[in-house]
């Protein structure tokens, strides 16, 4: 477990963007006082420390570079660094406000050992201008304690007790009040409580103290919550020379996909969601994800997806000085049956799937849709339009056809407005079809009408709406419409309507060919 503590995250962030001359301090309001939140090295040497009032600090040092705190920018920077640390391990957790936890078990050998990995990480952080301390230990607690309070370094598993004993109790990540009350009874170092009887400690200070101690000592497992879900399949490639051209990126995608294919085949899986992570030399990380409509393995298909994704990027793929690492991960995998090729239907399905994937990758999966039948008698709810990549095998149309044949459903329009459009209509008899109506400022004279087809509102729901009488009408020029009157005049005359219910109104809901 590796704990990285960025000691001066806020001041380093500010110092990176400006040339600073005076001691730099970051201030924020705590309660009613303007206090120092973070200080840089020079300020600390001059005796300034977080928690000091700003007025006091100014009195001590008239020349100060004072910057208001920006917790969001700090958090964003930490996330960026966390993304960048994905190059070492997929298990990276943010340890707010200024630390990261990396589970490097099983990953370190890729860098030639833990020490080499730490050297690599240190070199890059130093180059970026961060003050930090790194510690590796067997547990999260021990690594954290060593990074924040002890000497940074690599501590072997099993030595936690000797590592922790001289450290203050705050190194156990306890609440400040607990640390203070422990100090009141003379318990200041971890060594003081390691061999104490457990029952009295728990009785007095709660179970938290001992749990944190057990976790630090590897007696209890502490789970790490990674920032990003860990992909089941990952392939990555580092480059001796950074790559910048889009063709190179695509070529490497295909190569990584080729490696993933082997792993996917072994477990009988296919990719449903793929993410390409590009690490730029200057630390920026670009993640590009693409979804598929069916489990995918073929490297050429995966490459084709990313061709579209790259083409559709709103901001071009800015390689800067180039990418020095690329990772292709399958974030969602699904079992994928082996298919016999050469049978027309299946090949067609695959071709359609490929088309849907390409269109979705370029235009967005929300734009490529299929229609599925829903179990509703209300026209606008009878059909749902869902992203084509998500539709399952049963789309409900067989059931709809059975229902239509059973009840001899009247013809439905070819195109339906998502929202019925209000029209002004004149009808001969209150419950009859309209004689003429005005839609979008144009007057239509009705010469033929068919109906009504009464469709009850969803009376079981508060938002069901009134019953509708639908008419199929044709105007003088031959245009055909699907109109309805919401509400019945009969109800209005009988006075059944509760006050506040609107009078019957006419709407246009669809058009026929």
């Amino acid at each position: 477990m590796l704990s990285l503590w960025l000691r001066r995250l806020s001041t380093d962030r500010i110092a990176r963007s400006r040339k600073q001359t005076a001691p730099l301090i970051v201030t924020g309001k705590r309660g009613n006082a303007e206090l120092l939140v973070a200080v840089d090295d020079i300020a600390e040497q001059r005796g300034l420390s977080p928690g000091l009032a700003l007025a006091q600090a100014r009195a001590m040092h008239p020349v100060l570079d004072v910057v208001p705190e920006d917790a969001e920018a700090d958090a964003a920077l930490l996330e960026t660094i966390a993304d960048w640390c994905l190059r070492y391990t997929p298990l990276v957790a943010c340890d707010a406000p200024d630390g990261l936890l990396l589970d490097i078990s099983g990953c370190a050998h890729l860098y030639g050992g833990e020490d080499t990995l730490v050297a690599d990480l240190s070199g890059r952080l130093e180059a970026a201008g961060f003050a930090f301390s790194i510690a590796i230990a067997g547990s999260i607690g021990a690594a954290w304690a060593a990074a924040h309070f002890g000497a940074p370094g690599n501590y072997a598993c099993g030595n936690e007790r000797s590592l922790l004993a001289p450290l203050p109790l705050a190194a156990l990540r306890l609440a400040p009040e607990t640390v203070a009350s422990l100090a009141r009874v003379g318990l200041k170092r971890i060594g003081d409580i390691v061999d104490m009887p457990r029952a009295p400690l728990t009785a007095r200070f709660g179970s938290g103290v001992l749990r944190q101690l057990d976790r630090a000592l590897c007696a209890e497992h502490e789970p790490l919550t990674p920032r990003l879900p860990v992909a089941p399949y990952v392939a990555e490639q580092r480059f001796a020379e950074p790559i910048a051209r889009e063709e190179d990126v695509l070529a490497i995608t295909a190569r990584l996909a080729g490696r993933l294919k082997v792993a996917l085949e072994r477990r009988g899986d296919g990719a449903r969601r793929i993410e390409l992570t590009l690490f730029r030399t200057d630390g920026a990380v670009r993640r590009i994800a693409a979804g598929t409509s069916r489990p995918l393995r073929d490297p050429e298909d995966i490459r084709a997806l990313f061709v579209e994704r790259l083409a559709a990027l709103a901001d071009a793929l800015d390689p800067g000085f180039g990418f020095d690492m690329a990772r292709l991960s399958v974030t969602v995998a699904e079992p994928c049956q082996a298919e016999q090729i050469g049978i027309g239907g299946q090949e067609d399905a695959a071709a359609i799937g490929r088309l849907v994937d390409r269109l979705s990758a370029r235009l967005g999966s929300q734009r490529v849709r299929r229609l599925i039948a829903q179990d509703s008698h209300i026209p606008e709810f009878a059909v749902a339009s869902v992203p084509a990549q998500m539709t399952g095998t049963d789309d409900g149309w067989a059931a709809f056809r059975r229902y239509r044949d059973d009840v001899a459903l009247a013809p439905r329009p070819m195109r339906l407005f998502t929202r019925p459009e209000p029209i002004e209509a004149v009808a001969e008899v209150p419950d009859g079809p309209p004689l003429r109506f005005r839609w979008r400022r144009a007057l239509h004279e009705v010469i033929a009408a068919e109906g009504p087809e009464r469709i009850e509102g969803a009376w079981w729901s508060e938002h069901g709406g009134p019953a509708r009488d639908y008419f199929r009408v044709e105007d003088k020029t031959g245009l055909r419409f699907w109109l309805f009157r919401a509400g019945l005049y009969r109800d209005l005359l009988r006075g059944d309507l509760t006050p506040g219910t609107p009078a019957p109104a006419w709407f246009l809901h669809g058009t026929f060919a």
Partner: protein
Amino acid sequence: MLEQLRQRLQALQKPPGIEDNPGVLPLGVEAIDAPLGGGLARGALHEIAAPSEAHLAAAAGFVLGLAALSLSPSPRSNTSVIPGRERSERTRNPETHSEIASGFRVRGLTAAPRNDGEGAGRGEFVWIAEDMALTESGAPYGPGLDAFGLKPEQLVTVTAACTRDLLWAMEEALRCRAIAAVIGEMRGSEIDSVAVRRLSLAAAESGALALLLRATPPTDASTAATRWIVGAAPSSPSSGWECERAPRFAATLVRNRRGPVGSWILQWSDIDERFLLATHAQPVAAPPLDRPHRKVA
């Protein structure tokens, strides 16, 4: 003779890989199929425009009818094709030979049926529209598509943010082997002639039917195989106050690469899922079947 030479020249000029003649799609109406040379050419782009935006629904219905014809496994009616023309079509069509030849091949070993002129094995169509089009004229409604014999599950709808995306999506869809018809709905009057050419080529390569539906009659010259102006036509007055089920179209062929153009009143019969020549609502002169000035074409 001249025609034959022209055909040979065309065959020589065509870049390799482009199917020579993916066949025609008979509309089943003799009067229309004859000037079209047996029917609408598959593997080509056809423009269908509404005379005004109000008639867009009718034009869309006509387009859906064409899509339905292209999806159905067998041509509706062979009798509508003038026999002599059909024979010459057959002798010219190299695909017909491969069709016959494929009968002798071992079925299991051949690849999936390619463009064998009938569009067999293709069962999907794509409707691509701009975002605004769906709110302006309504979204395709599944239960209503059934009236055209189209299955809603065969439809993939795509919305595009701009005309460029729309044309790109059309081209992609046309390149897909399994797509029988691609409908692109455009509201803008301007269209890039290069894009149209690209669409025609993509359609020719795959043998799919490319249908460009336009809300207003285009004024620009076109490289599409045919251009139609289709509006709604009133039902026959004999039906009285009752609304007829069958939609009627006033279809005008304003541009035809093969020459003759004309104007017809058509009716879609949902029972046998084909177009019929409607009896006219009001007596009109015989539909003009002429070859106008070259400039129009």
